[in-house]
């Protein structure tokens, strides 16, 4: 099953994608055509959304770092999300804004001190993120700092959440980013430094994970700077294809 959050007739609602992927089915039986749907990021308000830095060895080498000994985790604020087909503001001086395609694991039940063998049973589903960074604003304090990673609407998420039961092996999915049709990132979730189970073990060791919490699991190599008006597509095999448009002010 694929679940999406959309804006429909004055309210935010969760909907289920039809098998032919042409319609979104609401609780009350209403069917909304996918074409023209107002997609929202499928994020539960109040959820904790974690993101990972340097979690693919090839991207880590590309940035000139050594693989970290423990996961490099940062947290997203609710201002940062935007749905499928949305726009992401690119500041006029943000010439080094680059997309990062990431597999997102969604937590389905509360857990603390979760064991590795049970870890994936805590995942209810998966979605796609494009975790933009703007490198001009990097500073070496709590890096990656919020001015780089927590700007309004610079973390597209979606289009939908695919049930975990429908994903045979989340650590063997092809992921890619294209900009105006040209491939700029291409990798596999097999190459994560800390895999999803490992990240759940790490985080739940010191804090309680709640239903709706999300883990953006990092990005493979490929740093390509976007321009206003580009079409950026992050796609993950078996999960979905997330489209976003960077937009200059004015």
């Amino acid at each position: 099953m694929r679940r999406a959050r959309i804006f429909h007739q004055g309210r935010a609602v969760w909907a289920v994608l039809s098998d032919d992927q042409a319609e979104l089915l609401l609780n009350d039986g209403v069917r909304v055509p996918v074409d023209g749907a107002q997609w929202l990021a499928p994020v539960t308000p109040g959820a904790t959304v974690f993101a990972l830095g340097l979690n693919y060895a090839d991207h880590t080498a590309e940035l000139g770092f050594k693989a970290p000994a423990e996961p490099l985790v940062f947290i997203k604020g609710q201002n940062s999300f935007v749905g499928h087909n949305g726009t992401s503001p690119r500041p006029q001086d943000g010439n080094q804004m680059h997309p990062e395609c990431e597999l997102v694991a969604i937590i389905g039940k509360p857990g603390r001190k979760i064991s590795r063998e049970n870890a994936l049973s805590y995942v209810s589903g998966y979605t796609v993120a494009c975790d933009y960074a703007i490198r001009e604003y990097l500073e070496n304090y709590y890096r990656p700092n919020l001015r780089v990673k927590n700007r309004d609407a610079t973390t597209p998420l979606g289009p939908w959440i695919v049930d975990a039961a429908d994903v045979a092996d989340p650590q063997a999915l092809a992921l890619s980013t294209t900009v105006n049709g040209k491939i700029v990132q291409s990798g596999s979730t097999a190459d994560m430094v800390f895999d999803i189970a490992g990240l759940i073990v790490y985080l739940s060791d010191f804090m309680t994970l709640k239903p709706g919490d999300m883990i953006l699991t990092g990005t493979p190599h490929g740093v390509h700077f976007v321009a206003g008006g580009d079409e950026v597509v992050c796609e993950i095999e078996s999960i979905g294809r997330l489209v976003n448009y960077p937009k200059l002010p004015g």
Partner: protein
Amino acid sequence: MIVGSVYGVVLNDREQNAGMMDAFGQKPYAAPPKAPVLYIKPHNTLRLDGAAVPVPGELPEVEAAATIALLFGDQLGVPVAAALALDVCEPHASYYRPAIRQRCRDGFLPMGSFVAYDLVALTKSEILTLIDGVQVHRWSLERLVRAIPDLIADVTAFMTLADGDVLLIGLAGDAPRARVGQRIEVRHAALPQLVTSFEQEVLA
């Protein structure tokens, strides 16, 4: 009501930063901070009911940094209420990487009641911390590198503080440390007192 994100800022204490000027110029920092250095306290850290803070057995002591929390309303970037807060964390010397494990444990952000406030009154009085009835720390907003209006302006220059978001206005570099079994009170003349205690964490 806190329905949004809770943001805090470090290195917003003039006295702390004065002592770090040499370090700011060296690796891994290379230069003093330009933008406010923000962090996020996720919702599992919130304790709004006066319940005890659970301290895990592996932490012999924690930093207990008294501060003021500002709650934002429907007028963009304008705080509508203030409360005392105690930002608890595992002591850590480096500000290079986000301190998630250190700052984001369950219950590590007890807060008092939010009330309407007056900026002048907030600035005029000190924030006092008492441990087991003994005053151990005092500081005032006059130590802030960015006073509240400047802090809000510099944060909202690159991100929105929306209704239901909270901003913690800074931490004292010399904040006290506390242990399991201790009772903490935070006082400020213009805000309701915050009382909490530190208990050994017991996992279900």
